């Protein structure tokens, strides 16, 4: 069985606000001194793929697919170290973040998937940590003409079917579809496993395939559905924190309770 996990490289989502710079002239966001990372939900998608690989009796190959501009191989090698078998990168200058809306990304990914040809399951993240759009997985499925299941908290494969526990308000539903299919993964699947030293070393020998847009037959277009008109840095409202004092830690707890009751915050 072949599983493709789509992973986007994004500027570190834990970086402080100073690292994000607004270029007013070109109306775009630039980054200062931040490392690229794997988008967080995409790590969950990879974890879901590896969980299937762990438990499947069949041979399972997990390929990582990433499209973008100047994709960093060291950053992507984290995915190989965690247990993916190969990395497929489609790198092109035209994949400038500002030029890539969900339509363009879904189109490029679909073109790459068609070139990969042999696939059973495609896993994507719930949303990319940069623009948080949450559309590419569904767009990809529509372009490939295959079913898509969203908000997966657990993914398994049985024969020619994918079975998904899907989040709904107050619980989950069990949903199935015939492969090939796209599944969009949420964080409840679990955090991406931590690679061992040996796995990290081995990652260096795993195959990395680099394609350009010509290889997948993708033509960059100017067909944008949404346009950014303004960019601002919102200020986070800080509050004046009253620090509770106490001799011991349990005094802290007691004094906190007394302060809250005295100020009628509780009770």
């Amino acid at each position, binding site marked *: 069985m072949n599983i493709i996990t789509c992973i986007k490289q994004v500027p570190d989502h*834990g*970086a402080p*606000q100073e*690292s*994000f710079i*607004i270029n007013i002239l070109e109306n775009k*966001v630039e980054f200062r001194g931040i490392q690229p990372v794997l988008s967080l939900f995409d790590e969950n998608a990879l974890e879901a793929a590896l969980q299937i690989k762990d438990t499947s009796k069949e041979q399972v190959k997990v390929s990582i697919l990433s499209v973008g501009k100047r994709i960093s191989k060291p950053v992507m090698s984290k995915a190989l170290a965690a247990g993916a078998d190969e990395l497929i990168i489609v790198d092109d200058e035209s994949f400038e973040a500002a030029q890539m809306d969900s339509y363009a990304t*879904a189109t490029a990914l679909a073109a790459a998937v068609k070139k990969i040809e042999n696939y059973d399951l495609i896993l994507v993240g*719930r949303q990319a*940590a940069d623009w*948080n759009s*949450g*559309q590419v997985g*569904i767009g990809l499925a*529509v372009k490939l003409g295959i*079913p*898509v*299941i969203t908000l997966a*908290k657990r993914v398994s494969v049985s024969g020619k079917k994918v079975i998904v*526990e899907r989040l*709904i*308000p*107050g*619980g*989950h*539903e069990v949903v*199935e*579809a015939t492969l090939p299919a796209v599944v969009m993964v949420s964080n*409840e699947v*679990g*955090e991406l496993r931590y690679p061992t030293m040996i796995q990290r070393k081995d990652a260096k020998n795993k195959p990395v395939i680099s394609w350009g847009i010509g290889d997948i037959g993708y033509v960059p277009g100017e067909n944008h*559905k*949404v*346009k*950014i*008109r*303004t960019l*601002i*840095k*919102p200020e*986070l*409202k800080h*509050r004046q*924190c*009253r*620090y*509770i004092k*106490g001799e011991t*830690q*349990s005094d*802290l*707890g*007691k004094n*906190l309770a007394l*302060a*809250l*009751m005295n100020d009628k*915050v*509780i*009770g």
Partner: protein
Amino acid sequence: MKGDKSPLVVFAEVVDGGKIAPCFFETLHAVQKIAEIYESKVHALILGHNVADIAEDIRHYGIDTIHIADDACLGAYHPEYYLAAFRQAYEQIRPCAVFMGHTLQSIDLAPRMAFDLNAGLLTDCTGIEVDSGEVLFLKPVFSSHILAGYEMKDNPFIVTMRSKSFEPAHRWELKQGTLNIIQVTLHQLQAKVIITDRVMRESAGIKVDDAEIIVAGGRGIGSSEGFKVLADLADTMGAAVGASRPPVDTGWISAESQVGQTGAIVAPAVYFAIGISGAIQHLAGMSQSKKIIAVNKDAEASIFKVADYGAVGVYEEIIPALTQTIKDNLKA
């Protein structure tokens, strides 16, 4: 969108088998403001089964026309039936834009609608702004460090709106607006995805959405046993237990408890953040709380910057003493 006289449609999501999702009224309010600017009509669309009463009730909100597609296939959410019903309704209404609350349902449905109509979609919008007569939709991007103002270039387009970003629409004594029944044909649809089971969690305690007080724990709680210490505190105050993302990832607590950008957006009277560092994606879901109390062993943790009260130390000692003092006081 300017100059287009076709209506703005607000999608009325049905939840819990017979109520309108609370965020519908907030989205409606935002859309009423947009309608004023463009002099457009506001319509609502309900997809569901046995929804006549709900439709009647939302006539109190000053909506021009309420469209209802009522069909046995729409009793519970199924992506393909809902998409087909939406498309059929769309062809009759021909709206210039569709607005939805940003919910678990619209996370699934809105992109399907957008790709089906080949329409632009902006998800999780938190505000609107007028710029030279044109409405811009505001959305936090890059870990909420940047707020982008989007123009939707072509009609139709779709926008989903984050809950608690707008005040709910006004409820009028008087009912108005017409009800329009839309006939949909769905029974012959061959669904590609099949729902085989629904598993509702036994509701242990109060939900974060409804709570006046929330006791939330983060990665610092360390285990599901640790969450029992928080549940104890929550019980003494009639509070709900919430969480940041890592405890949900690791399964210490269920998904409904997650607060933040991709979890529940809450604004209770009191929010305890315990063993939570205060990442911006968490703050996005709770910074509107009236009083915030932080307990963290790291005095430098960002959570203290947004807290009203802070205690620096380990929760294992602080929380039991806090709980005991409140209990003693209740007895006295």
